[in-house]
């Protein structure tokens, strides 16, 4: 007991009870959800508009450049291409909501079935690459921050700068040449579904995942480094050191969560580059993913397929950014309160 019990009267009680915190969280989640849905709507409009405003229509492509204009017009009518923009958009979105993404005019395949088939390949590729990039970037970035005034830190930062300059496709080609053709450690290209042979599935993913992750981790190292340097200058880090934590444990216990706030933001933004990288890498390693599907569809002017694929990619990006927004609530208790 302190000398007297009177002096505590002026101290305010703890702010923000549990109840108000929960309400705040719910409101925030609903706002984020609204933003997510609105972005998706706008994105779908833009995708549909761009795909339909492009020169060179499907009917022309199907019948060939030298086709009779009357026949082209007849086919347009048959496909419903001459109806107003919003009617066709509504039809597309309506179908989407019931799980029908349309049918390709060219291959007469269900777009939804095609995308579902290829989606797994890209998802594994990007997912593994993201995880691997983090596994590399967090320790390396932390090291570079802790030793930033030391030659080892300089070298690490320098190497990550160098990594930034490497395009993913070049890393991929080098990996194919070195590990696939020369050393023969891993298959140089192709894909085996997980359900068929898990060991072969993994073996086929190693090189593409590594080439994609290498470049990503170079970017992330820089963000982890600067986030860690910021934490190192924070008062709470100094407090942690003053109560007896050594450098690394102090960082892990009190720095990681705070630093991850900014790293997670970058992670969400990086997903876009990662997907673009995946499209390229799928070409290099002949993986049957969404990227290959998209490039093929673009080359064939298979607009229904392009629309569907791009929408799925956009959905993935928006969804991940929605999850990033939610993770802030998990990471930072200050955001959980109603203001």
């Amino acid at each position, binding site marked *: 007991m302190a000398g007297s019990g009177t002096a505590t009267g002026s101290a305010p009680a703890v702010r923000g009870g549990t109840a108000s915190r929960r309400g705040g969280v719910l409101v925030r989640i609903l706002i984020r959800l609204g933003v997510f849905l609105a972005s998706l709507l706008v994105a779908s409009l833009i995708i549909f508009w761009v795909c339909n405003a492009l020169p060179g229509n499907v009917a022309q492509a199907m019948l060939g450049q030298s086709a009779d204009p009357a026949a082209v017009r007849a086919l347009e009518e048959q496909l419903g291409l001459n109806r107003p923009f919003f009617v066709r958009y509504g039809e597309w979105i309506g179908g989407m909501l019931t799980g029908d993404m349309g049918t390709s005019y060219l291959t007469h395949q269900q777009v939804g079935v095609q995308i579902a088939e290829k989606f797994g390949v890209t998802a594994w590729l990007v997912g593994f690459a993201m995880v691997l990039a983090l596994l590399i970037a967090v320790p390396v970035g932390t090291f570079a921050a802790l030793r930033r005034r030391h030659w080892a830190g300089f070298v690490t930062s320098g190497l990550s700068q160098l990594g930034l300059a490497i395009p993913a496709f070049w890393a991929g080609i080098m990996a194919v040449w070195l590990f696939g053709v020369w050393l023969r450690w891993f298959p140089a290209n192709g894909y085996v579904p997980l359900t068929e042979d898990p060991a072969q599935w993994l073996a086929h993913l190693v090189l593409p995942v590594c080439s994609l992750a290498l470049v990503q981790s170079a970017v992330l190292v820089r963000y982890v480094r600067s986030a860690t340097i910021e934490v190192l200058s924070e008062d709470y880090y100094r407090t942690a050191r003053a*109560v007896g934590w050594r450098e690394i444990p102090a960082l892990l216990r009190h720095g990681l969560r705070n630093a991850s706030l900014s790293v997670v933001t970058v992670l969400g933004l990086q997903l876009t580059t990662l997907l673009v990288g995946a499209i390229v890498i799928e070409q290099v390693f002949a993986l049957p993913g969404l990227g290959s599907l998209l490039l093929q569809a673009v080359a064939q002017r298979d607009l229904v397929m392009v629309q569907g694929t791009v929408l799925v990619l956009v959905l993935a990006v928006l969804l991940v950014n929605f999850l990033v927004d939610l993770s802030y609530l998990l990471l930072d208790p200050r955001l959980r309160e109603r203001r």
Partner: protein
Amino acid sequence: MSLLEVRNLSVAFGRRPPTLTGIDFTIDAGARVGLIGQSGSGKSVTALAVMGLLPEYATATGSIRLGGTELIGRPDALFAPMRGNDLSMVFQEPMTALDPTMKVGRQVAEVVRLHRKSSREQARALTLDMLEQVDLPDPEQVYDAFAHQLSGGQRQRVVLAMALINQPDLVICDEPTTALDVTVQQQVLRVLRHNLDAVGAACLFITHDLAVLSQVCDQVLVMLDGAIVEAGELKSVFTDPQHPYTRGLLATARLDQVAPGSRLPTVADFYRRPERTPGTEVAG
């Protein structure tokens, strides 16, 4: 033998001329020593040097002994277990001193668990007890609060609890009340004094506020430009200052002796830094 013996301590940052030169002082067990001086005089650097928390590009030379153990050059693996246990520190800024993402009770409890073998429940019980010791109302509620849910005074009490819970021999306080308003300042100082007594800890109290100094300390060190210019019992220094800078500091605090409307005294009226000849500063 004194608890803390600082001999000929010099600190330099990088290749710049030394920030501290030839610092000598001792603190006996249980003593309250105030360290005053203006901003930039090297008070905080002295504290960080004792804590072994100077940035890596700083070099400290001389000797700092705590209970006979030499701290300068002590590897972090051996020094870290002493921090928070044998000596601890309270910083100036309570608003940012706590991890914003961890409940404050856990932050205090982990200081116990870091240094003592104790179960989660034991650490929690000790923490709740300590939170009560530093006069926090409703310790259970504070334990589960995040830093942003507490006021500045409450946060500084939590930091005090962290610094005191392992009953260290020496607590260094670096302007612990400067960021608080005056009424809260008084409460925190009272809690500090009370708990220093309870633990029997010595205290190195850094401040530039003479009123605060006189409430906590019985000895005083006066620092100027990285050197200690005067040291002694609080009473004798306050009544009979030897160094002109100390005389100036004391005079500026005597606002009751200023005639209304007249110019306030400044330290410069009593003490002027020796002129430095151009070119000699760089050589340091």
